[in-house]
């Protein structure tokens, strides 16, 4: 069950309306744009899976629009999604890879790497802070909540950089990470 179809729990909607409602919810199209094609493809998939069902057609002017509602199975899937914790995604951080490469490569200026990254982070923090200040907390509160989240996450990064830099000498004394050696000979027989 995807985030976007949770909005069908509010009321039955057609695809176009669903997309608009979702974009309004997350603070505007600039925050999280959804392509119409994505919406229709997913609606089809959900219908096949029995999670939503077409309950009518709107024909007023222009092409006809199919209106969907959640089935009871859909409602159940939604419940499960809603009350399941979400792991935050901190994997595949490009700076982290740069940092590790820097530790392995002779002659890399790691202090400079930290410094450059630190500048970039503060510049980003400044931009979001400005946008947060310019947003109207009454009419744009979804956008404001979103910006608060971004700012608070960004705030943690310079602290981590400070820590990484403070531990640099200690880390340099440690053995470098090595790829796992390939086992020699034939791989052991799989046992049933």
């Amino acid at each position: 069950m995807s985030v976007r179809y949770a909005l069908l729990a509010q009321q039955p909607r057609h695809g176009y309306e669903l997309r608009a409602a979702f974009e309004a919810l997350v603070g505007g199209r600039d925050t999280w744009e959804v392509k119409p094609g994505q919406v229709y493809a997913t609606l089809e998939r959900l219908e096949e899976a029995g999670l939503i069902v077409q309950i009518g057609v709107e024909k007023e002017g222009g092409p006809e629009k199919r209106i969907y509602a959640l089935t009871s199975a859909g409602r159940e899937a939604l419940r499960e999604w809603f009350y399941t914790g979400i792991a935050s995604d901190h994997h595949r951080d490009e700076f982290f890879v740069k940092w590790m490469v820097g530790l392995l490569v002779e002659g890399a200026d790691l202090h400079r790497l930290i410094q450059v990254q630190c500048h970039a982070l503060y510049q980003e923090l400044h931009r979001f802070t400005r946008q947060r200040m310019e947003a109207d907390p009454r009419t744009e509160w979804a956008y404001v909540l979103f910006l608060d989240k971004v700012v608070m996450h960004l705030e943690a990064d310079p602290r981590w950089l400070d820590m990484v830099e403070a531990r640099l000498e200690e880390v340099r004394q440690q053995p470098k990470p090595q790829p796992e050696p390939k086992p020699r000979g034939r791989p052991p027989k799989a046992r049933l």
Partner: protein
Amino acid sequence: MALIRTENLTKIYGTGEAAVVALDHVNIAVEKGEFLAVMGPSGCGKSTLLHLVGGLDRPTEGRVLLDGRDLTSLRDDDLAALRRRRIGFIFQFYNLIPVLTALENAALPLLLDGVKPAEAHRRAAEWLTRLGMGDRLHHRPDQLSGGQQQRVAIARALVAEPDLILADEPTGNLDSRAGDEIAALLRRISSEWGRTILLVTHDSRVAAHADRILFMKDGRIIDETRLTGTGEEQAQALRERMEAL
């Protein structure tokens, strides 16, 4: 043009074995109208720098120039007069007088400078109102939240219409929401009312409001970054961040 310039500003506390070099040949310039933040860990010399720039203390070596005029060569009473008229201070613990109301606290610098009470109160009320404290003029500090007390302290710092505001960890005693509000207020004081601000803090979210950040360590400025960018750069950054989500 620089409103404030320091030349080899150095402060050593104590002598001999016990000497502490709190500030070590610091050269900075704060442009007119600029909002400059100085960041660094506790004990790196931020407060010392602010005190010397504000003429609250004298350097061991070096000079502080305000509009090209050397503060370190002024006599104590001339320095005090210049400080009252041209520099406003904001501190972590507000430093309000407990028995005075918000209005009386904010009017204090004017009264001490010989302005008639009616006029002093009128001007204090004006600043308090601009800072969102118009409905709290007659409250005493103990009847106000931390954020509200800091607003009173900011009104007091601005009431004599100084061109330079010095702020020492102004959000250090506030929760994050009140801290954000005070930081946003400092930004407006710079952008809307054109004051020059020198802020020292160890809070990156507060420093992020500034136009430029200086990083300090062991009494020296070790790095600098400019934050103010164009609107287009901002929009681009936002798009990139959204796509990454």
